[in-house]
Structure formats: structure tokens, C-alpha cells
């Protein structure tokens, strides 16, 4: 350890990264101790690059040795790339090698200094990403199939429930009606009221079941997007809804409405429900008025339904979109499913729906549908 040469040799041996100093005839002149730490091999146990290659590269040894031989034509440093190295335990590591010409020995042999960085974890991660990318499409289609299956099951469930519940409800209503009609005289006034109550409650539940089925379905079908003439759609829905509100003594004003991008059959449910609400809650006024307005931006079309009816407490503006949520009591009939269906359809179009209003100040419900393809 006293000659200058020994000092330099010792410094190279201390390299924190696996290091090889090798000559053009294959002699391994020096390796770092970190080579031993990283692989478990005795770093001084290899006399030649060939011995190291045979141990570390297995079947690839010959190819690697050819690559090493070419290094001796180098004029400057080069990044050789990644190599699979087998350690003493048989585990595979990925080393990223860089090499550079390192001068000439006194006997004229050229030397190369090669240093490796262990990139196993990065290489593993990259391999995992490649694998995941390769299976991504597969997983997306598998997941899509799962979702579609869940929708189909939900649909079958909703259908079965609505169908199977109808028969017993008809029985409850029917037996109560028969009791009332044919045995009513045997009942006192209270008894008759109770029988009538049973009959009515069964009918109410049938309506709830129908509405629930409609709600379940509002979300199961993917919208079939096309351009929709909203002025025509509002007029068509109004004709239908108006017939259900003979008590409505007002008029509808439809402003110019931009075309929407949406599923017409689903949007009918939104518009019908909003018009139904507007007519219902403004029907107590002689000067009832329902305004439908719309405007378009580059991103979305927005439609607003405003009435001058009884309005609602704005604190409940969000809650009114919940299933079976009702802000008004028995004064106004309904199950509270209409806005829930409207919201669900709008959400299926990736749109938004919101409400504004105040007690006695009428209500305003707006929804927007994106134009960039739902």
C-alpha cells in the first residue's frame, strides 16, 4: 500500500458502484468490492471477463463477451445499456453498464473501465407497466362487461320486483274493495274508512313501485347521443303533460332553444318531469306562467324551466333531487321520483342539474348538457 499504484488501485476498489477494469485480451485487472457486495461473488475470484461473463450471464455470456470486445474500439465513454446479471443466489438483477477507454497498460494492452448501476427495481416497474398496458384493454372490456352485467341484473331485478309486487297489491286493493262493497253494511263508519284506507294505500304503493322501476331504468341504458330539437321536444312533452293537469290555468312560453346533444327518449323524461312540476306547483294561480329558455356556449347547452308557482325553501334545493324526496305535503300529489329521474338522466349525459327558488317566488330548474360528446 505504499506505491502510488497501490493507492490508485485501492481507490478504484472502493467504488460504490460495481466496477470492472479490464484489458483487451480479457484479463480482469481489477474489480470493486461493491461487485462482491451486490452479487455475493468473490470480486477477486474472476481472472478474466470471460469467467465473469460465464458466471453472471449464463446463456448470454458469448453475446456479452462479443459486446465487450467491441468496447476496445471506443474513443470516448458509452452507455452500453441494460444487462441481466445472475447473482450468487441465482436471482436475476438488471445492471445498466457504462464504459469508457481507460488508457494503456505498460505492455501496450488497451484498458476499459466499466461501471454498473443496479436498475432492477426500475426495470421491474417498467416491465409491470408494459404488462399492465398490454392487459389494460382486456381489463377495461372485462370491467365494462361486469358493469353491463350488473345493469342487466338490476334491470331484471327491477322488472321482477315490479311485476311480482303488483299481484299482491292488486289482491290487497281488491279484497278491501270487496269487503267495502259487499260487507260494508256489517262495518261501522270507522271500519269502512279503514277498508278504504287499505285500498288506497295499495294503489299508492303500486304507483311507487312503477316509479321506482322507471327510476331504476333511467340509469341503466347508455344514452344514444344525437342532435335533439329541444323546441319540438318541449312542445311534444307539454301536450302530454298538459292533459294531466286540467286545473292548470296559465300558459307556457318557450324561448328559442338550442339543439341539444342527447338521447331523445331519455330527455323526454327530464323535460316531462320538469314541466309536470312546473304545472303542478303553479296550478293554483290564475296567471300561472311557465317559461322555458335556453342558451348555448361552446361547451354546453343549458335549459331553464321557470314557473311562478308556490316555490320552495332554497335550503332544500339539493335534497329535492333525491329519490322519493318531497318538499310539499299531500296538497300536491306525487311520489317524489320525477326530479330524481331527471337528475339521473342528466348525469348519464355527463350534464348538471340544479334548482333555484324561494317560498312563494316560484321555482327555477336548469340543466346543462355538454356539447363535447357525452
Amino acid at each position, binding site marked *: 500500500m505504499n506505491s502510488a499504484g497501490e493507492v490508485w488501485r485501492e481507490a478504484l476498489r472502493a467504488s460504490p458502484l460495481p466496477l470492472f477494469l479490464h484489458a483487451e485480451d480479457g484479463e480482469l485487472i481489477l474489480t470493486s468490492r461493491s461487485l462482491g457486495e451486490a452479487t455475493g461473488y468473490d470480486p477477486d475470484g474472476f481472472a478474466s471477463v470471460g469467467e465473469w461473463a460465464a458466471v453472471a450471464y449464463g446463456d448470454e455470456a458469448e453475446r456479452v463477451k462479443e459486446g465487450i470486445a467491441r468496447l476496445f474500439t471506443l474513443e470516448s465513454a458509452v452507455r452500453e445499456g441494460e444487462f441481466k446479471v445472475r447473482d450468487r443466489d441465482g436471482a436475476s438483477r438488471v445492471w445498466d453498464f457504462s464504459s469508457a477507454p481507460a488508457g494503456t497498460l505498460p505492455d501496450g494492452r488497451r484498458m476499459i473501465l466499466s461501471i454498473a448501476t443496479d436498475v432492477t427495481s426500475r426495470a421491474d416497474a417498467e416491465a409491470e407497466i408494459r404488462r399492465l398496458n398490454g392487459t389494460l384493454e382486456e381489463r377495461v372490456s372485462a370491467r365494462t362487461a361486469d358493469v353491463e352485467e350488473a345493469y342487466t341484473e338490476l334491470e331484471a331485478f327491477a322488472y321482477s320486483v315490479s311485476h311480482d309486487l303488483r299481484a299482491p297489491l292488486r289482491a290487497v*286493493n281488491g279484497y278491501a274493495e270487496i269487503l267495502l262493497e259487499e260487507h260494508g253494511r256489517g262495518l261501522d263508519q270507522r271500519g269502512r274508512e279503514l277498508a278504504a284506507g287499505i285500498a288506497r294505500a295499495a294503489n299508492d304503493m303500486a304507483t311507487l313501485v312503477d316509479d321506482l322501476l322507471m327510476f331504476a331504468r333511467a340509469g341503466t341504458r347508455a344514452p344514444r347521443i344525437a342532435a335533439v330539437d329541444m323546441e319540438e321536444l318541449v312542445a311534444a312533452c307539454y301536450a302530454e303533460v298538459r292533459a294531466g293537469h286540467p286545473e292548470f290555468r296559465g300558459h307556457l312560453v318557450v324561448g328559442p332553444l338550442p339543439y341539444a346533444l342527447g338521447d331523445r327518449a331519455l330527455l323526454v323524461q327530464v323535460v316531462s318531469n320538469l314541466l309536470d312540476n312546473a304545472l303542478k306547483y303553479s296550478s293554483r294561480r290564475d296567471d300561472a306562467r311557465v317559461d322555458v329558455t335556453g342558451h348555448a356556449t361552446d361547451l354546453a347547452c343549458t335549459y331553464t324551466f321557470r314557473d311562478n308557482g308556490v316555490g320552495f325553501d332554497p335550503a332544500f334545493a339539493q335534497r329535492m333531487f333525491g329519490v322519493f324526496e318531497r318538499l310539499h305535503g299531500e296538497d300536491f300529489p306525487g311520489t317524489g321520483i320525477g326530479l330524481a329521474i331527471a337528475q339521473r338522466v342528466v348525469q348519464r349525459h355527463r350534464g348538471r342539474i340544479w334548482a333555484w327558488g324561494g317560498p312563494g317566488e316560484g321555482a327555477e330548474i336548469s340543466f346543462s348538457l355538454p356539447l363535447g360528446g357525452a
Partner: protein
Amino acid sequence: MTVPSAFPVLLVEDNRDDAALALHALEAAGHRPSVHLVRDGTAALAYLFGDGSEVRREALRVVLLDIKLPLVGGIEVLRRIKGDTRARSIPVVMFTSSAEARDREACYRLGANSYVVKPVDFTAFSETLSLTVRYWLEVNVPERESGPAR
């Protein structure tokens, strides 16, 4: 071969309550004696086709057929009736709880003559049923006249 039916109306209904309500409504409308009730699709086919050698169809004015029946469903009964040249012209009215488009479409595709949804409300149910029976017994002119229907 065809043989006469003792009853102008064949009602195929498995649900005990629906059957009781239907018979009650038919009784009130005066149609009860015209109606034969069977409780499933197998019994309906046995009534209509017997052992297969003859079809009981003369004087049979209408089959009221529920869709959801145990074992042999209403749609299969419909298929068998409309698929048999001897039985094809027997009017079949689907009388069901299902308002589903797919049920409706499937029944009409198979040749159902009418599709009636049972209302839940009993008053409406009674009116619907007696109106239907009255139409087929008193208004509709059958393929073959074989004496008075009632």
C-alpha cells in the same frame, strides 16, 4: 278433429288472488258461467289439445292468458296455440301484470290477438276484465258460429 268447449272463455291464471278477484269480477258482471279456469300452462294445453288428436275449440270464444305461469309459461302456450293450424284462429288475449315492451312485442309477434294489462286498482281491474270478456262474447264475430256463446 275439433270438439266443442263447454265454456266460451278459458281463463289461464295461476295466482290464487288474481283468480279469485277475476272470478269475483266476472260473477258481478254475469259472465261467471261462461268461464273455465285453469291454473297453469300445462292444464291450459291439456284442455285445448287433450292427447293431441283433437282440439277443443268450437264455442270457445277467447283464451285469457297470463304470461307468468309456472312450468309452461303463457308465451309458450301462446306459441303452441298459434303454431297449430287447427287452433290458430282461437282468439288469445294476454291478460297480464306486465306492461313491458318486450313482453308485449313478443306476444304480438307470436300472434296474440290482444294485450291487456291488469290494473292494480280493483274497480279498474273489474271493468277491464268484464269489458274484455264482453267484447269477445258479444261483439266479436268468431270464425265459426256454433250456436249461441252463452
